[in-house]
């Protein structure tokens, strides 16, 4: 920047300080959570030496493991369905500038991003209860939780995929169409490879959102369908619990490693694609 706010050195130091303090604020709780998962003391905030006791207990914690298994299955199906519906919704919004009720449609896609979850959970549950009274299904359980997670997942997936579709030049699809490709061929051969990274990001994001959700699951779960966040939440409500710290550490490590690897692969694929585009441009000047 040509004109610094208060003089270059002060400006840089202030900027670094602000960023550093901000990241400290964002990461301090995570670090504390991990450190206290190895705490041997019975008092949760007093350090009493190193132990792996809580992890050993976690391995035989049936309630938590059953919850994890249920959560993983719901998150998997939520992520897959969110990406499919989100792709359709993003296409509808980007490719078709006008259709009947477009404003209502974009409103319904965006609203779950901010709508308080207690409202979504309550209204969806009451509808499903009414539906069950008329049709005899669905029973509250995995399916109903999935429906709730899908509503929020669809919104997030659409935003991610929409951003990618908008940055994509329409010339490539038009060229394919001019060369005689049918619409579905254009989609599979041109569009899909170009938005593949966005689909991957959307899948991961909706997977983690579903894996984390408490409120929608609490409203929509039935007897016997207790997801892992519900187990964690019921323990956390009662107070500090080292078993929560241990499960938190496992989740944080797995998610961090997963996200870092995925974003590395996505960035790598993107670079290679750009190199190929550049090479093709050089070959056909």
């Amino acid at each position, binding site marked *: 920047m040509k*004109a610094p706010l208060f003089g270059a050195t002060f400006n840089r130091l202030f900027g670094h300080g*602000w960023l550093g303090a901000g990241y400290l604020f964002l990461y301090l*709780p995570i670090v504390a*959570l991990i450190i206290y998962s190895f705490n041997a003391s019975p008092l949760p*905030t007093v350090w009493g030496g190193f132990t792996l006791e809580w992890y050993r207990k976690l391995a035989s914690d049936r309630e938590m493991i059953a919850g994890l298994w249920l959560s993983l299955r719901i998150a998997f199906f939520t992520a897959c369905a969110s990406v499919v519906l989100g792709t359709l919704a993003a296409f509808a919004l980007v490719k078709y500038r006008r259709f009947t009720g477009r404003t209502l449609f974009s409103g319904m896609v*965006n609203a779950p991003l901010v*709508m308080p979850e*207690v409202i979504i959970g309550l209204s969806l549950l009451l509808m499903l209860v009414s539906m069950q009274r008329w049709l005899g299904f669905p029973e509250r359980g995995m399916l109903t939780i999935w429906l709730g997670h899908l509503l929020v997942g669809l919104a997030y997936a659409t935003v991610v995929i929409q951003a990618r579709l908008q940055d994509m030049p329409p010339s490539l699809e038009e060229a394919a169409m001019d060369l005689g490709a049918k619409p579905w061929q254009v989609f599979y051969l041109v569009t899909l490879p170009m938005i593949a990274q966005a689909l991957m990001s959307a899948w991961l994001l909706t997977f983690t959102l579903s894996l984390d959700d408490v409120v929608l699951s609490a409203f929509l779960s039935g007897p016997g369908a207790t997801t892992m966040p519900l187990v964690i939440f019921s323990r956390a409500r009662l107070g500090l619990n080292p078993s929560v710290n241990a499960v938190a550490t496992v989740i944080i490590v797995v998610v961090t490693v997963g*996200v870092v690897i995925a974003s590395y692969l996505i960035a790598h694929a993107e670079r290679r694609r750009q190199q190929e585009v550049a090479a093709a441009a050089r070959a056909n000047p």
Partner: protein
Amino acid sequence: MTTHPTTGESAWWQRIVPSGRGVVIGVPYFWLLLFFLLPFLIVTKISVSEMETVRFKDVLTLKEGLLQLTLKLSNYVFITQDDIYFKTYLASLKYAAVTTALCLAIGYPFAYFMARAKATIQPALLMLVMLPFWTSFLLRVYAWKGLLSENGWVAELLIGLRIDQILFAADLIEAPGKLMNTPFSLVIGMVYTYLPFMILPLYANLAKMDLRLLEAAADLGATPWVAFWKVTVPLSKAGIIAGSMLVFIPCVGEFVIPELLGGPKTLMIGRVLWDEFFSNNDWPLASAVAVVMILLIIVPLAIFNKYQAEATEKRS
């Protein structure tokens, strides 16, 4: 796309099988109407019906061959007359507004310095903001319970710096040294959780800004401080509004954070709804609480939708 290339006539089956366009728009549209819009209509309906012993009465009933409409507005009368609901709605709006203001005050400089950092490290900085966002929100809120409890790291630090005295004087905590289960711990938790939602749209906005505009302002004699307020801030208006709505609206109805960090005395409407539903099993009253909450956030929601739509129009 559905017509024959030479004759221009549709094949008979093409009239039955929906077109590509129809499927692309129709499937998500139908899904959202069924699982997003319809539930709100049902909630509104239930909020004006009466609770019976096991199930609530239908609004429309057939009585002696005549369709009868019974609207019970008693739930709404109850909400408006009982002082506690009014206070709780007010408190929720207040906490959400304070959280939004704090997120903006912390997040704007943060996003600004991120956007002006070296281009090579910006992806890493962005990744570091996103990463906590990917890891469990529930667990990160729970972590604050440990940090703010007695002997917790942040509690020790704040008490050591005598900041608890200031917080006590400002009536944000109940007693010096007791930080958990207070308005203070609630707001810390909400600011912490929603800060990335403020930073990300602001960063996206500030990173795109044309820096030549600042040079032009400097050439025209503006000091950097003036240029910041007259050029940078107005240009980032869309980011400020998007970020503020992303923080404010969900905060109004927040449940998990007040439940874990707010203690029994901090009033939040999300908890009232939860208790009416799960503890008192009063579905019509819970529905009425939800309908009033929707009415409170409908204007911010409309603003959010408008800016979200405008942002997508502009980019393409």
